[in-house]
């Protein structure tokens, strides 16, 4: 397919972005990444564990020539913390992309929109390509875009919940109203049909982690998500038929035997 996802001028073949957390092993993660067809992987920033040196580094396992690394500020609860984390992340691979999270509540992991805006402004000023995770609010999306976000990434349901698309109407409105930057569903996808549905709504991409890493067979689910994202995208571009209440025969009504 020549239909690629473009964020901040960078082209991606796949419209699926994967998280790298919660896998039972690095080996399983690598296989899932391959099966998913993705070319962008998000990673978290944490202290090196200096007491347990047995832990290998994630980047020993991810081919950074094959995958664009998208560091994230997962687990940050303030704009300051998120900005600090982003600045550190930039140093590791000299990569100025950041998936920005400023979490406002531990139970729901809903974003703190005010902190998010503050951090977006600061990081854009610092030269970052900022991809914020936010709730599905149109006004917040517009403010993030005004602040310089390179894409906006609404949740479809709480992070890690696997509830699927719980906000169809808001996502449809966002799709209609947001044309300036890519719109990427981030969080909530539980199975392949959720990903297909999101893509059929016309969003530009889907980011997921738990839906794949938490499946009984992550590699098979990664392949399912790969197909679902592509199927949903194709269906969206193909243009679905209008919904009608009553039947409409698909065979000719003339020439039937009497």
């Amino acid at each position: 397919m020549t239909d690629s996802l473009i964020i901040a001028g960078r082209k991606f073949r796949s419209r699926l972005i994967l998280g790298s957390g919660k896998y039972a092993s690095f080996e399983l993660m690598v296989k899932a990444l391959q099966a998913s067809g993705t070319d962008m992987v998000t990673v978290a920033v944490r202290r090196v564990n200096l007491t347990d040196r047995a832990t290998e580094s994630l980047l020993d396992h991810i081919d950074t020539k094959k995958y664009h690394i998208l560091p994230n500020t997962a687990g940050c609860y303030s704009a300051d913390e998120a900005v600090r984390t982003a600045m550190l992340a930039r140093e590791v691979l000299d990569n100025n992309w950041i998936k920005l999270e400023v979490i406002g509540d531990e139970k729901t992991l809903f974003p703190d929109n005010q902190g998010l805006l503050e951090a977006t402004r600061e990081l854009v000023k610092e030269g970052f390509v900022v991809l914020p995770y936010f709730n599905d609010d149109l006004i917040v999306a517009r403010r993030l875009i005004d602040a310089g976000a390179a894409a906006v990434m609404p949740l479809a349901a709480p992070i890690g919940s696997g509830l699927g698309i719980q906000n169809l109407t808001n996502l449809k409105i966002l799709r209609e109203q947001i044309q300036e930057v890519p719109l990427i569903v981030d969080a909530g996808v539980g199975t392949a049909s959720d990903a297909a549905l999101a893509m059929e709504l016309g969003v530009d991409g889907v980011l997921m982690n738990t839906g794949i890493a938490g499946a009984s067979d992550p590699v098979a689910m990664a392949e399912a998500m790969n197909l679902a994202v592509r199927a949903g995208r194709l269906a969206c571009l193909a243009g679905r038929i209008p919904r009608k209440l009553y039947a409409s025969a698909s065979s000719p009504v003339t020439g039937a035997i009497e």
Partner: protein
Amino acid sequence: MTVIVNGNQTVITEGSAIGELIKSLDLNPELVAVELNRRIIRRADWDSTTISEGDRVEIVHFVGGGEAM
């Protein structure tokens, strides 16, 4: 002298530079980022930046993660 590395009290040689600390910890310099007293030290400056008694050093790397953990 004693410094705080990733929250733990650590004894290192007097006048050590960041680069020496990374080397002594056997870390791959290409895969980590460093803060000294909350100020980021770029890789190019590791060898010219010395650590003083009581300084706080943070050494981070990438780990598996997608969303808020």
